């Protein structure tokens, strides 16, 4: 989930923070300190996250486009300049464009808005934006909610009391609500100082940027893994099941399926599954990073040399062209597979299916998938020539059965012509003739279209009179028999108009 950092560089951010005795700080310095801490954390624990840095006042400027280069982000922070007033709305428009251009409108994004809670004055201020919300044309709509799923984190370099003295807090809460409600407003506890800003960003890190660790199990084989990006909780039906579902920290493989059988299933998200060394404690906050850096090369080299189940699994999945079905929680499943990024690099990936007992109709209920050893005979055949998948639905879809639709005149005409065409080729086409005739009869009865039955009976009688002399004598018998049967059906007489009744060919014997 990419992150956009939206940094307030208005003049109010330069307000000094009164600290007794020591060196004087601006709020901006505190904000920069907090962001540096966030970037350091991400560089060591969340380094695959793409992050962009945008500064705004009445205008906005993209300082660093989406990158994983956290040094570049920190560098940009160190050279921030000060500008005029805060204008959140235009900056949000900027974020909207930036994200959609880069990731489209389906990719969920995190927006970290760093501000001091003084949200501008007059036109362009957040207060003004929110007040005029309902009086806008389609061309000047407020940018929230974004078209893409958003998590909005508002980092206020101010404490809650200060924000509540004005309407700033109310406006920020309204902003969060407008963005869809997913996210949080963070304020500083106690006096404004380096320590409290660290505390605030520490809470953000815990909330949104702590790596997701899990154990991947395959029977007794297992591996500690990091799942990136973090799987987000999912709400399937707010009414029936309002509690969000979360991915369990134990990922249990249920069994294996061929890629052809799982056949490009729809997934709600995709994640890298990265093996981690079991004994290496991952530093959550990033303190003491210097010690770790020195040790890291040898530690990671060691880890590289000890066998890891993920690597084995990945290799075999890749070679065999299979996926592993993995259980993520109660009635929630996903699949593990090898994903090649380019020709050289490939990775173990996990895709999450929609929660539920039967995410893929062609597999049926996952809990009813059992080991092949229990089947009477191998459902894949001795030479892997067949497969128990896909499951066939009990009822065929309309396009897979020969349905009759006469909404367009052409549909009706085609069906009548088909009968006449076969009628002219009797007795060779006796079977097809009656099949088509019965199909038309059934539909006409269901639709209460008795007039059509009479009409087709007339047509068949006419065909009978027009038979050439060379025609087989059976043709005339069959045509008049069919016509007579249709006429009887058109009376609605229950003996002849039963839906399940079929007109059978007249029994004739011309062989002797």
């Amino acid at each position, binding site marked *: 989930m990419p992150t956009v950092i939206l940094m307030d560089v208005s003049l109010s951010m330069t307000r000094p923070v009164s600290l007794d005795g020591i060196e004087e700080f601006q709020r901006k310095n505190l904000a920069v300190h907090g962001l540096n801490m966030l970037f350091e954390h991400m560089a060591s624990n969340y380094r695959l996250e793409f992050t962009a840095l945008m500064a705004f006042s009445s205008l906005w400027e993209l300082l660093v486009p989406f990158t994983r280069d956290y040094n570049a982000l920190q560098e940009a922070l160190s050279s921030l300049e000060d500008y005029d007033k805060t204008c959140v709305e235009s900056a949000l428009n900027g974020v909207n464009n930036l994200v959609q251009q880069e990731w489209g409108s389906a990719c969920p994004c995190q927006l970290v808005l760093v501000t001091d809670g003084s949200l501008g004055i007059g036109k362009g201020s957040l207060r003004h934006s929110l007040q005029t919300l309902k009086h806008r044309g389609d061309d000047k709509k407020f940018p929230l909610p974004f078209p893409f799923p958003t998590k909005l984190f508002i980092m206020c370099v101010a404490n809650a009391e200060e924000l509540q003295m004005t309407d700033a807090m109310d406006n920020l809460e309204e902003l969060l609500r407008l963005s869809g409600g997913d996210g949080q407003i963070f304020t500083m506890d106690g006096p404004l100082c380096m320590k409290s800003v660290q505390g605030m960003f520490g809470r953000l890190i815990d909330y949104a940027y702590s790596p997701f660790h899990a154990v991947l199990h395959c029977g007794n084989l297992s591996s500690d893994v990091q799942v990136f990006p973090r799987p987000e909780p999912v709400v399937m039906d707010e009414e029936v099941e309002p509690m969000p579902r979360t991915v369990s920290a134990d990922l249990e493989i249920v069994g294996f399926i061929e890629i052809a059988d799982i056949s490009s299933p729809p997934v709600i998200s995709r994640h890298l599954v990265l093996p981690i060394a079991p004994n290496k404690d991952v530093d959550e906050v990033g303190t003491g990073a210097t010690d770790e850096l020195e040790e890291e090369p040898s530690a990671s080299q*060691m880890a590289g040399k*000890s066998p890891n189940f993920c690597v084995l699994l990945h290799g075999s999945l890749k070679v065999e062209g299979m996926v592993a*079905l993995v259980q993520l929680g109660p009635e929630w499943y996903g699949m593990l597979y090898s994903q090649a990024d380019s020709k050289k690099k490939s990775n173990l990936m996990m895709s999450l299916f929609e929660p539920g007992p039967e995410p893929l109709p062609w597999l049926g209920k996952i809990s009813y998938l*059992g080991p092949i050893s229990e089947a009477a005979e191998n459902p894949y055949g001795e030479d892997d020539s067949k497969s128990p998948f896909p499951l066939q639905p009990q009822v065929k879809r309309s396009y*897979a059965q020969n*349905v009759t639709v*006469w909404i367009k005149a052409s549909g009706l005409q085609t069906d009548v012509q088909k009968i006449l065409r076969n009628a002219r080729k009797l007795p060779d086409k006796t079977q097809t003739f009656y099949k088509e005739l019965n199909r038309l009869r059934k539909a006409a009865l269901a639709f209460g279209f008795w007039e059509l039955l009479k009409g087709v009976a007339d047509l068949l009688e006419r065909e009978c009179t027009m038979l050439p002399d060379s025609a087989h004598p059976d043709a005339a018998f069959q045509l008049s028999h069919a016509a007579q049967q249709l006429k009887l059906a058109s009376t609605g007489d229950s003996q002849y108009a039963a839906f399940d009744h079929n007109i059978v060919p007249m029994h004739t014997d011309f062989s002797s």
Partner: protein
Amino acid sequence: MKMFSVAHKTVFVVDHCPYMAESSRQQVECDVLTKSRAQGVIPLAPVSKSLWTCAVECSMEYCRILYDIYPKDKLVNYIVSDSEFHILNSWRREDQSTHELMSALAAVGPPNPREDPECCSILHGLVAAVESLCKITELQHERRTALMDTAERVANRGRIICLTNAKSDTHVRMLEDCIQETILDQNKLAAGSDRLMAIQQCELVLVHIYPQGEDTLVSDRPKKEISPLLTSEVHSVRAGRHLATKLNILVQQHFDLTSTTITNIPMKEEQHANTSANYDVELLHHRDAHLEFFKSGDLHMAGTSTRENGLKETVTLKWCTPRTNTIELYYCTGAYRISPTDVNSRPSSCLTNFLLNGRSVLLEQPRKSGSKVISHMLSSHGGEIFLHVLNSNRSTLEDPPSISEGCGGRVTDYRITDFGEFMRENRLTPVSESTHDPSGKLPAERAKAQLERHTRYWPMIISQTTIFNMQAVVPLANLIVKETLTEEDVLTCQKTVYNLVDMERKNDPLPISTVGSRGKGPKRDEQYRIMWNELETLVKTHAGATDRHQRVLDCIIACRSKPPEEEERKKRGRKREEREDRTEKNGNKETDDKSWQESERSVGLKGLLDKEDQESEVIKDSPDSPEPLNKKPRLTTEEVQPPERAKGPVSLLTMWTNRITAANSRKHQEFVGRASSVNNKFELYQHLKDENGMDVHENGKASR
């Protein structure tokens, strides 16, 4: 869409009163004469559908699309109304198919024009519809049971689609009032019943049908709220084509559908088989398949066009001729069932048959910029066609570190092929719910249990295992993981063991890995010891399962015991080699597989102890009886030869070492032990023996 939105239950109420037998006055020419036959033949008079026929076939089309796209849990209850109501099906899942409905409709037949119009009314049907909405569906029942104390979360909403010929706007209002009253009455009834649910929301869609060429007596009216429980809308439509279009629009609105037109489908001409023309086919599906489209606002610029009456929009996607069938796992963000708008037209059936035969088609989305992007895929799974949405945006997971750079990435001898075989054995297959014993474990749990059994002993790399590199062990290794063994299985396992004994007697080489050890690796008898230990480890993890498993273990333990002198000789060799092993290990700092080594060793040691127990109990009188625990000191000399006496030519290293040793020895006084050694061996700690009279049978290090 919520699980229990109004779309969960739809009641069709179709008017079966005498006036519905009236002609729609839309005529269909069904006798199309070809030119060659036209002479002298009087064409058949065109037929025309009655209002009833129009209503029935359009409602069936609505149901066809609905069932194609929502085969489960979007339910239809079909009611016809004349002098009384006739309920043609129930909410039950097995009643939900167009075939069922058509059969029931055939039994009802067209309205009887001679029936007394005074006795007939649509009201009978509408009252029955409200009653029907109160009846609980299977899904509602299942969810209520599953939710237990939060059962009130299961809502009861529904929609009534009434196809009738109303007399006037006042008549319509009367119908609405009647429904409102019936809802209130029924809700009171439902409050006291288990099988009924009160209606929380009801949507009435009243479609007034009138013949072509007549003026309507009922005016259109958009949705309005009659009460908090009931909303109502009125559509006044001419029978025939217009009615069909209206119901097509309604089914899309009611079930969040949208339309996609696949363009540029190459299709062979019926008449000229060698030419092909391009066709378009329109499909309906859930609108989420174009979610991103709608959101990004790209829609009106490129892919869409407004058709016919300006009411319907369709997204255009272009057919991409499929490559030969490569199996690929696409990143697909959604898959939605489709239904062709014009199901039995030739282009539609050509497309659907192509897909049903197992081919997939990628679809291209024209974009504003003119660039082209593959955005969707049509594919069938088990006779159902799905429109897959493919991700066409930049991936946030691009350029990840390769798996070879991470943990375990530098290890090169993973048992990839063996694990592939393991995966094939642990493939899954659907188990029918009817054959499943409800008291037993679910099939997926049994699959996990099988994985557990199969992985009790499963070394991940080739150099960690001997037995899994041996063809001879395969029959036993395959059988021992089974939950239960047959007598025959036990026999096969025993045969495998005997076979191994035979190999050992013949001194056949073993595929012991030499990775990580210098030189040729361990000696042959040491190799067999390792192999037996490993086999025992494998079987031991399963021995507790059944008596037959235990018998396989017993067999191994019994067979691996050796005649005393052979055993003794081996032990000596082993001790030495073990030591070598250990020093090598330390030298290489190979701590990575230490855990395995340790577990292997401890099991091996335990195995030895067990074996000795076993032997003392079982094979006491056998000539193979075990050597005594107290072993004599071995000071025999034939075993180890000093390097200079080794057979064969002397290596440069040996010559050099000898020279240096000789040179060095001149520079210091020789150790007492070495000086007074017998055959280069000297017994250490001799005083200990004197002190407590114990045999000390170890004095190895002197040899090196």
